[in-house]
């Protein structure tokens, strides 16, 4: 059921057109949630826990309620129903009244006529705590807690989730290997740091709640509100306001979104809550810190015979997307390299920190970092060129991986060729302190399964044509990546218009059909295919009506065609939907990893590393990204450059770390992120493999290009100084320490020394797909 039978000539697809909302954005007229101030709006502030781990003995709000200007004070008793993004981990409350699990856990909320009054009322709430010993590291979470466990599920101790899977004959694979190598790596946690602080405004009118929020997924917020507020879906409307940056950080339903709705219901007035920057650090859901151990067997010529990968994720205090994140740390290794036998053991632990969740690349940048550097080390050990060793193991298009993932279009070879040639990698000038490193990666074009089990399409689009104009309705949320522009381009392409001529209604649960939102790089592929189907149906109506008059569609204006079609058929509406093919493997846990298509990237980093100061200065980055087909190359470049930037920030400076239970730097000054001065020039190559199922052949662009940057940077540091930094961020201290160890004759590396003992269960043994490799030979049902 290829949606795109051959690529016909296109008019607007592939053109670097400005975004449809570009003028609103550059004139300050886009309305973000905090820009809204309906008449009589009350302001909400949230009282948060000062302790990383404590039982709540009592909460006294009486003094707060007496303050003039305070209209409502609520606590956990008002919102006792638990929620959470995954059905298996409904472990959060909008307000906690029994126990707090991290500094920043919400306890009470106030609605007042003024934000300062609300803040002062929060100060007037008296909470009595029984302080418990916090659990602040993976090691601490693996042993018996001094006081009590953080959550009352999972286990043993503070383990949240254990995963153990084995595909093919791993022991046999290692037995065939001529070389076996083991390494340990650590990827530090970091946060999204969107420029816009989370914000939500709610009203309650005629028994209906309306919420405007800075969210990536109106649908999931809608569901969580219905559950916690105990209101039917039809009495809740969630609208995505203009969005000031997500990167995965606004993909969970959040406490403040539920709280403003509850306060609006209680007071009958609009209620707004905008998080402070410090609170944004506590909302988090960012990159999991992950400790990794990997063992790989290879032949003399560098062919992988078996791989065993272990991960330990520091999850923070709640589930969030964590179960999925855990599986993702093991899922995509075989999507770039042909691994004939593979064992994956994953573990997520609870700690008394803000919950980790999905950040750009969700659970896959960490293992990608480990895998790329591990292969780099194997190549050096065997005396092989790392690029060549990796190429020998590249997956081929139209194959099934050992863990049953279906690979269709794959531009790994072409991406590699582009960056190796453009960077002059092979002919580079060798001088001390200068290094060049290479890495590759892959990412999903949308998760193949929904967050909660259901058989509905993942995206639906409706199109209406009337009075000579066209409107497309879609639930997807434009978070700045330009998904509105992609939808408009697809509809315009099919109907013979310009993107700016297509009116859009998006991300509104009252007026738009279901779409699972902006996460997992799914919008272009999934909403794009739904829009394509709806637009083609509309085009067919217009063509039929025009031809019935003995004329040709291309000879009449759109306005005239629409009048003819409305006269012939009545109201003109069409719909399209997209459901991913059912391609998950036949094993428990196979739901994480499948995607209708994978993007591929290759990256070269050129840097100077100063042996005296440990400072790393990146000179230039080359990146090639297989996007299938660029619906809008300008937006694709923007996504690729933004991904490179974010990967570089993670590689060099960004880290979310804690001291004595407290976030070390919950501010934008101390949490370092790259500025204009830190960002090198980036040379971007768009590789088009024309995916058989993507709209016009398109795949994802927003996440994959982040992944190769940290390992390419560390490979370049080794190239420059001869030391391995097996832990990011690569700070000057780590470089200096590694050089010191090298001088003393110790292993020339900085990184974790060991991987802890984790009680992984016996692996679920999964037979690889029949005739592992080509899937042409087997039944693949879509």
């Amino acid at each position, binding site marked *: 059921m290829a949606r795109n039978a051959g690529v016909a000539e296109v008019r607007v697809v592939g053109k670097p057109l400005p975004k449809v909302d570009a003028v609103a954005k550059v004139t300050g007229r886009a309305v973000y949630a905090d820009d809204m101030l309906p008449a009589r709006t009350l302001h909400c502030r949230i009282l948060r826990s000062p302790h990383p781990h404590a039982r709540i003995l009592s909460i006294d709000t009486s003094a707060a309620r007496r303050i003039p200007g305070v209209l409502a004070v609520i606590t956990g008793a008002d919102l006792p129903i638990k929620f959470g993004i995954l059905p298996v981990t409904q472990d959060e409350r909008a307000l906690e009244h029994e126990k707090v699990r991290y500094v920043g856990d919400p306890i009470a909320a106030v609605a007042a006529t003024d934000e300062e009054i609300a803040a002062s009322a929060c100060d007037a709430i008296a909470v009595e705590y029984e302080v418990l010993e916090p659990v602040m590291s993976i090691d601490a979470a693996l042993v018996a807690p001094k006081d009590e466990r953080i959550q009352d599920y999972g286990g043993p101790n503070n383990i949240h989730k254990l995963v153990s899977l084995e595909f093919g004959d791993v022991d046999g694979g290692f037995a065939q290997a001529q070389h076996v190598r083991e390494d340990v790596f650590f990827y530090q946690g970091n946060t999204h740091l969107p420029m816009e*602080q989370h914000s939500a405004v709610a009203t309650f009118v005629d028994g209906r709640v309306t919420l405007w929020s800075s969210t990536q997924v109106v649908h999931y917020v809608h569901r969580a509100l219905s559950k916690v507020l105990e209101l039917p879906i039809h009495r809740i409307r969630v609208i995505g306001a203009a969005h000031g940056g997500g990167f995965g950080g606004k993909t969970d339903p959040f406490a403040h979104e539920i709280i403003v709705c509850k306060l609006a219901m209680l007071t009958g007035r609009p209620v707004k809550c905008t998080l402070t920057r410090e609170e944004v650090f506590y909302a988090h859901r960012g990159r999991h810190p992950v400790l990794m151990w990997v063992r790989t067997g290879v032949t003399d010529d560098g062919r992988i015979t078996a791989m065993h990968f272990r991960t330990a994720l520091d999850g923070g205090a709640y589930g969030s997307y964590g179960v999925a994140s855990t599986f993702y740390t093991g899922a995509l290794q075989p999507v770039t390299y042909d691994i004939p036998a593979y064992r994956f053991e994953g573990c997520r632990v609870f700690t008394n920190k803000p919950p980790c969740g999905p950040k750009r690349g969700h659970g896959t940048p960490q293992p990608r970092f480990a895998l790329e550097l591990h292969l780099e080390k194997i190549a050096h050990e065997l005396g092989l060129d790392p690029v060549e060793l990796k190429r020998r193991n590249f997956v081929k298009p139209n194959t099934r991986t050992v863990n049953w993932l279906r690979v269709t279009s794959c531009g790994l070879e072409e991406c590699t060729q582009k960056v190796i040639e453009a960077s002059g990698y092979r002919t580079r000038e060798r001088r001390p302190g200068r290094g060049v490193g290479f890495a590759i990666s892959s990412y999903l074009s949308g998760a193949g399964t929904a967050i909660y089990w259901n058989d509905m399409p993942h995206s639906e689009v409706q199109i209406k044509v009337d009075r000579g104009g066209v409107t497309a309705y879609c639930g997807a949320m434009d978070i700045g990546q330009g998904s509105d522009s992609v939808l408009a381009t697809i509809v315009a392409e099919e109907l013979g218009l310009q993107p700016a001529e297509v009116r859009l209604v998006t991300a509104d649960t009252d007026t738009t059909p279901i779409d699972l939102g902006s996460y997992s790089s799914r919008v272009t592929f999934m909403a794009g295919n739904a829009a394509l189907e709806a637009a083609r149906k509309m085009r067919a109506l217009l063509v039929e009506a025009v031809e019935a008059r003995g004329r040709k569609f291309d000879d009449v204006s759109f306005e005239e065609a629409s009048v003819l079609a409305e006269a012939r058929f009545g109201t003109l509406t069409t719909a399209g939907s997209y459901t991913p093919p059912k391609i998950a493997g036949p094993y428990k846990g196979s739901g994480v990893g499948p995607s209708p298509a994978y993007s591929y990237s290759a990256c070269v980093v050129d840097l100077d590393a100063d042996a005296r100061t440990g400072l790393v200065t990146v000179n230039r980055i080359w990146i090639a990204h297989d996007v299938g087909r660029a619906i809008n190359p300008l937006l694709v470049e923007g996504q690729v450059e933004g991904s490179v930037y974010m990967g570089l920030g993670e590689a060099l400076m960004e880290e979310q770390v804690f001291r004595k239970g407290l976030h070390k730097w919950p501010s934008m000054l101390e949490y370092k992120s790259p500025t204009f001065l830190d960002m090198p020039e980036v040379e971007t190559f768009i590789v088009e493999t024309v995916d058989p199922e993507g709209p016009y052949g398109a795949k994802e662009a927003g996440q994959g290009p982040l992944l190769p940057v940290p390992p390419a940077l560390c490979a370049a540091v080794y190239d420059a100084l001869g030391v391995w930094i097996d832990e990011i961020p690569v700070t000057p201290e780590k470089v200096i320490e590694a050089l010191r160890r090298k001088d003393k004759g110790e292993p020339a590396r900085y990184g974790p020394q060991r991987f802890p003992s984790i009680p992984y269960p016996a692996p679920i043994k999964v037979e690889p797909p029949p005739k592992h490799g080509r899937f042409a030979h087997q039944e693949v049902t879509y």
Partner: protein
Amino acid sequence: MKSEVLRDVERVVLTLDVNGERRELLVPVHKTLLEVLRENMQLTGTKHGCELGECGTCTVLVEGKPHLSCLVLPIQIVGRAITTIEGMANGSELHPLQAAFAELGAAQCGYCSPGILLSARSLLEENPRPTRDEIREALAGNLCRCTGYTKILDAVELASSPSMGRWRATPEWPK
């Protein structure tokens, strides 16, 4: 700290000159320019990312020079010309920087764009043909998380190129 704000707040009457319009306002004396612009004057084009002077998002121009509106008290700048993003276009004609940002995809989520546009405008007024490094230097106080800065640098270069002209008409809307 407790209940400090519950005391009577001192309010001042002052006149601010914003985007060429003079407005008389009664505001609590401790309110920042950012708050007064957004809350008292409904000029919500000025955004905020930290309210601590760390991110540059709330940049406005005071007498043509970039200022962090979250760190300025209105009473400090009475009588001085303030420019916000709402005052950058000439009616519906975009400033060349705005046109270049739109054209080249320099605004993704758009949240940092007002502050960066104003910083860039101040730069171009002092230095109409800056080098790429001079642009980096001038904009280093403005953080952006979406673009990786590349398209912003391209857009400022385009806006400063002779071909761009002083003013550029609104992009051609479809007829």
